[in-house]
């Protein structure tokens, strides 16, 4: 035992130098290239692609070295970035999901708006090059771009062509309206090809946020929060209530099957349980890999008695925020990288590889020219839907603080409605009440 104790002691001593020698981070800045840290939440294949982009940028010049670091999920990445800022160890670039946008905009000196960064560093930059429906989500009321869109997606319809055929439906004609979704679902279920007609991923994003934009209806006052932190939610309006009444009814009849939050409903579609799913356009590659049947895509359905529908869908995904508190030399590198990221070649490659939207018109055109949409039918649906009409104040995007928690409130309300625990009106009234409480809290916290 004595020997073992000695051994343990010796081991401890060996570990001590390790304790001392940390902080490799800033040390080499003088000798080597200037290091730029980019915290992101891209896992798996996407993470590999992010690293490839960084490698491409690093080999394109010798002054800067971009270092991407995976910090877990979107929520974890954002919290890590905020904790780091409070301790003065923040990265240069941080990827933030769209629901975090409200909090980032209120971040004052913690961030450097992208348009300002470009001006300050003299980087050539024209915000008109970017898809306005994408950047709209990330601009201030004057139209200045605050963050750089990176991975944006929008929800679309995916449908199982084989199940459609089995049910005697035209596999090239997806439903256009909710009435058709209902009718198709009935046929699909009756044919025995599937257990339920349709499901949805990301329930709040799809059935409240995008549903409202698509029907040119606000989900909150003050232009969906763009014009002030004192906004209030209005999702207990007749349209959203009507839609949730229908969904609850369809759930009861077995036409709709709730599949859980986030992307959890994926499995219902890829396993052939349901014939249709509403999901992020970025799920295209995943669906290709996991479905052993042919599927098609279509635009989101609408109620054809609603004036102004369909308008355009809004985005989800994440954008890149530049963090405050770094040196001008480093910001030059950040600006240069953002420009590199926006170049048509890099964008088109990212778009085609991941299924996220291209953020510039040039990248969209390049993809067209390369014949990408011909070769991969169904991939352009998202773009056509995004750009169907010019966005209005109701379909430009959302800007609410505390939206991470608010989305949780919305999801909870939807779950209580779909399970029949509450009526659509009760559930959405409650969601508005709790959501407004969180908005007031955000307003109070950020004054």
């Amino acid at each position, binding site marked *: *035992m*004595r020997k073992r*104790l000695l051994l*343990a002691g010796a*081991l*401890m001593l060996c*570990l001590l130098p*390790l*304790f*001392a*020698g*940390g*902080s*490799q*981070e800033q040390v080499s800045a003088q000798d080597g290239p200037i290091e730029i840290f980019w915290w992101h*939440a*891209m*896992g*798996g*294949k*996407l*993470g*590999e692609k992010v*690293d*490839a982009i*960084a*490698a491409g940028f690093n080999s394109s010049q010798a002054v800067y070295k971009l*270092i991407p*670091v*995976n*910090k*877990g*999920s*979107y929520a*974890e990445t954002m*919290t*890590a970035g905020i904790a*780091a800022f*409070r*301790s*003065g*160890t923040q*990265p240069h670039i941080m990827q933030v*999901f769209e629901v975090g946008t409200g909090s980032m905009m209120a971040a004052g000196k913690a961030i450097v708006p992208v348009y300002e960064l470009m001006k300050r560093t003299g980087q050539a930059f024209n915000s008109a090059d970017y898809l306005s429906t994408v950047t709209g989500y990330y601009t201030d009321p004057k139209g200045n771009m605050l963050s750089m869109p990176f*991975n944006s997606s929008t929800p679309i319809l995916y449908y199982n062509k084989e199940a459609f055929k089995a049910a005697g439906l035209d596999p090239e004609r997806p439903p256009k309206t909710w009435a058709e979704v209902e009718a198709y679902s009935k046929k699909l279920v009756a044919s025995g090809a599937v257990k339920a007609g349709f499901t949805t991923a990301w329930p709040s994003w799809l059935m409240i946020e995008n549903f409202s934009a698509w029907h040119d209806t606000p989900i909150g006052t003050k232009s969906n929060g763009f014009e002030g932190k004192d906004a209030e939610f209005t999702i207990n309006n007749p349209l959203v209530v009507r839609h949730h009444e229908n969904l609850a009814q369809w759930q009861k009849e077995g036409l709709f099957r709730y599949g859980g939050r986030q*992307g959890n409903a994926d499995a219902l579609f*890829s*396993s*052939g349980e349901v014939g249709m799913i509403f999901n*992020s356009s*970025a*799920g295209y*590659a995943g*669906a290709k*890999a*996991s*479905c*052993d049947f042919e599927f098609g895509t279509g635009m989101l359905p609408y109620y054809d008695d609603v004036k102004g529908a369909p308008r355009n869908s809004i985005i989800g*995904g*994440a954008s890149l925020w530049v963090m405050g508190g770094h040196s001008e030399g480093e910001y030059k590198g950040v600006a240069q990288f953002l420009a590199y990221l926006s170049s048509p070649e890099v964008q088109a490659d990212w778009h085609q590889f991941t299924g996220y939207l291209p953020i510039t018109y040039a990248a969209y055109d390049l993809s067209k020219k390369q014949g990408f949409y011909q070769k991969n039918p169904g991939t352009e649906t998202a773009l056509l839907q995004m750009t169907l009409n010019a966005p209005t104040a109701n379909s430009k995007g959302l800007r609410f603080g505390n939206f991470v928690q608010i989305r949780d409130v919305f999801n909870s309300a939807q779950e209580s409605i779909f399970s029949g625990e509450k009526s659509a009106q009760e559930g959405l009234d409650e969601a508005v009440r709790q959501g407004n409480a969180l908005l007031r809290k955000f307003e109070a916290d950020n004054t």
Partner: protein
Amino acid sequence: MAVENKGGILLLHVLCIIGVALILFPMYFVFVASTHNVQAIMQKPMPLIPGTQFIVNYARAIASGSRMAGAFSASGASMLKNSAIMAVGITLGKVVIAFLAAYALVYFRFRGSTLFFWMVIITLMLPVEIRILPTYKIMADLKLLDTYAGLILPLIASATATFFYRQSFLSIPDELTEAAMIDGAGPLRFMVFILAPVTRTTTAALVVVQFIYGWNQYLWPLLMASTPDLHTILVGLKAMIAAEEQLPEWNIIMATTILAALPPVAVIVLMQEQFIEGMTEKEK
């Protein structure tokens, strides 16, 4: 009191097999999933027999870390090394400080010992995740972010090991101490040459518990490390799952899950006898 008749033994075996099957089924399931392609996993029902993609998936699981464009993302080897350093550091740290503290609590009377004991008890209660944001700030103030010390230290502030040692020491007969005193052994000699050997099985059990605890940490290493150089294998694993809008590559994730679970499983399986012995001795 072992059962001796043949029928009884057979029945026990049947019951044990059912139980083991139930308990191990999730693990088996993971293994099966790690040997198929994604398409097969997403079907209904998922196959229950291992597929043909074993080599492909595991090769990718092992390589993916380093294949992620090499320069940035940590390689699988480096993540494993970090996990090992963290787990060993937490184990050694906890065992050593707990041994010393428990020794003081049991073998000495000193002012403040009750207070200290209560302070230790309270730390049993709050997992690091709850106090994680203030802890981060403190680590930043102490300039310990992105260091192995920063990885390890906050995770050794807990009481379990101190408790175990305290109980173990209390069960040691006073005659042993008496004899040592008569032989003229001082407290340090007693501690090193008598107490440590006598309680070695408790130490072994604690090593197992703490190693597994340390190896399986996730949230703190993720938050603390701002460079991939300090990523652990679990951080890497979760990075694969966090595909957000996209479909995760479940087969590769499952293969990595198996790889990441191997070291702690090996530790508990290899040390199970010492572990049980250590726990048994405590109850004397």
